[in-house]
């Protein structure tokens, strides 16, 4: 409880008396003269320039008194804004994975009927990436995707349709045609994300090209490879060289600018190459996996060859489509089974057999998940008894412990026209 002293009980009286007494005194004569001198030289502002004339008074009142900022406060405020902006930018800026090694799993893209779709690896969130398109390939940093779009109005009955090679953001937005109206194989990325390579010609493999992924330069012809047709090249890990499977059964290495083309394979193959690409580079760039057919109509076998000039080694007969795991410690490839389709086999980095995964699938390129815990493979005859049916993508455990997970990959049997070479492309995210 508070009590006022007798002197503050008459506060109002005291205050009024004090102010009245303090107010006494003359007003300087010069004050009015000064006001009149200043106002006589100017005129009132026109009414339209005065906010009070057209803004409600209550709003105008809120503007009074106006704030006056000191320079120091303005600088501090600007610094705070700059710091907050920097934090937001850094926080929202996506980290990118390195081109090799273990990464986090992003989305998968694959061919479903005549369209490209994008979905989560658990089969949810399906979105259409592009229609009448094939051969999707995520860049190694996961930010872009390349594919080819079929130009249905440019169909050659002997060689099939022409295509546009397209690069889009990973979610399919902002597609840009990098190469227009060519008969191209699978467009594949350089690991540094700057280039695409593809083979193209009347019969798809007449020539091999490198083109800037942003379409800023004309395609570079990698040469004639002894007058033979090259098949979809693959970039070395440092993006400086390419491996090229050529139609006379030879495997070549060529610089990105088309120079120093030379044969590295030793045996006299009928054909070489894997289904989706010429050969698979090991992440350290020292070895290549490739399929080769030595005897006509006897099927492919999987070989490994180094760049040291030594001859290739047989990894597995009746096998093909070898791919390295993200960290290079393992190999996955397809091997013929008992007539129900090939199985997925896991080997170590030297090619030594480790295990065969359960199930029979199709002769497609398998795809490792970026975190190396799954292998995706397409089964185009999943019905009982190996009958044709709606295709599925199987996600297999490379350790052979977990049961496969199956994702629907379309509601119709796969037609030859839209049969993909590579099962899926798996987006890599920063670990």
């Amino acid at each position, binding site marked *: 409880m508070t009590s006022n*002293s007798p002197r503050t009980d008459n506060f109002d009286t005291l205050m009024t008396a004090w*102010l009245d*007494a303090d107010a006494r005194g003359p007003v*300087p004569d010069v004050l*009015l003269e000064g006001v009149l001198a200043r*106002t006589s030289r100017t*005129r*009132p502002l026109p009414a339209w320039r005065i906010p009070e004339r057209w803004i409600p008074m209550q709003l105008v009142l809120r503007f009074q*008194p106006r704030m006056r900022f000191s320079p120091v406060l303005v600088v501090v405020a600007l610094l705070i804004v700059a710091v907050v902006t920097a934090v937001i930018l850094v926080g929202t800026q996506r980290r990118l994975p390195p081109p090799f090694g273990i990464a986090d799993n992003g989305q998968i893209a694959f061919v479903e009927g005549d369209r490209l779709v994008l979905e989560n690896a658990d089969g949810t969130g399906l979105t259409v990436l592009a229609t009448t398109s094939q051969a999707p390939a995520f860049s190694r940093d996961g930010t872009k995707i390349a594919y080819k779009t079929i130009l249905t109005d440019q169909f050659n009955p002997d060689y099939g349709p022409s295509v546009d090679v397209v690069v889009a953001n990973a979610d399919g937005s902002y597609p840009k045609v990098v190469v227009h109206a060519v008969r191209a194989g699978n467009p594949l990325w350089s690991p540094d994300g700057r280039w695409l390579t593809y083979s193209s010609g009347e019969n798809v493999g007449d020539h091999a090209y490198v083109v800037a992924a942003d379409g800023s330069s004309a395609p570079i012809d990698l040469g004639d490879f002894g007058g033979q047709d090259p098949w979809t090249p693959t970039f070395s890990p440092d993006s400086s060289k390419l491996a090229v499977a050529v139609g006379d059964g030879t495997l070549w290495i060529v610089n990105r600018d088309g120079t120093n083309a030379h044969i590295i394979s030793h045996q006299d193959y009928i054909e070489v190459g894997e289904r989706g690409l010429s050969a698979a580079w090991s992440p350290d760039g020292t070895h290549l996996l490739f399929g080769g057919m030595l005897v006509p109509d006897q099927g492919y076998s999987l070989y490994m060859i180094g760049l040291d000039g030594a001859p290739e080694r047989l990894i597995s007969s009746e096998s093909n489509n070898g791919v390295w795991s993200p960290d290079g410690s393992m190999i996955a490839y397809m091997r013929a089974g008992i007539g129900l389709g090939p199985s997925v086999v896991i080997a170590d980095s030297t090619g030594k057999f480790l295990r065969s995964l359960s199930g029979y699938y199709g002769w497609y390129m398998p795809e490792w998940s970026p975190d190396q815990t799954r292998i995706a493979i397409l089964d185009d005859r999943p019905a009982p008894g190996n009958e044709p049916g709606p295709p599925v993508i199987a996600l297999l455990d490379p350790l052979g412990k977990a049961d496969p997970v199956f994702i629907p990959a379309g509601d119709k049997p796969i037609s030859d026209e839209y049969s993909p070479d590579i099962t899926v492309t798996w987006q890599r995210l920063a670990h």
Partner: protein
Amino acid sequence: MRRDLVERAMAGDHDAFAELARISIGRLFVVARLILRDAATAEDATQEALVAAWRNIRGLRDPDRFDAWLHRLLVNACHREARRGRSRGAIELHVDGIEAPQPDPNLGLLDRDQLERGFRRLDTDQRAVLVLHYYLGLSLDDAAEALGVPPGTVRSRLHRATQAMRAALDADARPRAAEGRPA
């Protein structure tokens, strides 16, 4: 009569405005001096308020509210002068040509001293509301209009200012022995 002068001034008649200024300038100067506690800065504030009035008089929508509008301009000018004084450091005292206020014989020297010290501790907003209410005798609603703030804000400012002044008076009125000093 006043309305006629205001309307003529709004039409650009400087003579009419000069008459309005002559009528108002004494009150404005005193109010400014009471708020700012300094004659020179009060002169500046008064002059700035009247110049602003002339420049913006066509923004006045109701000529009958000329005085309230002028008070708002003056209080805003006092705010600017007070900030300018703070940025300069201490406010200088100018007494040339101005006679010292005449003391009220009913007020003791001690009261004036305590009120002065208490009042100087208040900020400009609190001083303004005390002056408008106790010196000009404006109601809280009229003071709110003059200050350009809601009536509730004026009430709270007046309450805080009054409390501060009472506290100043009470503190100075305490027996000196209570402060541990010899009587």
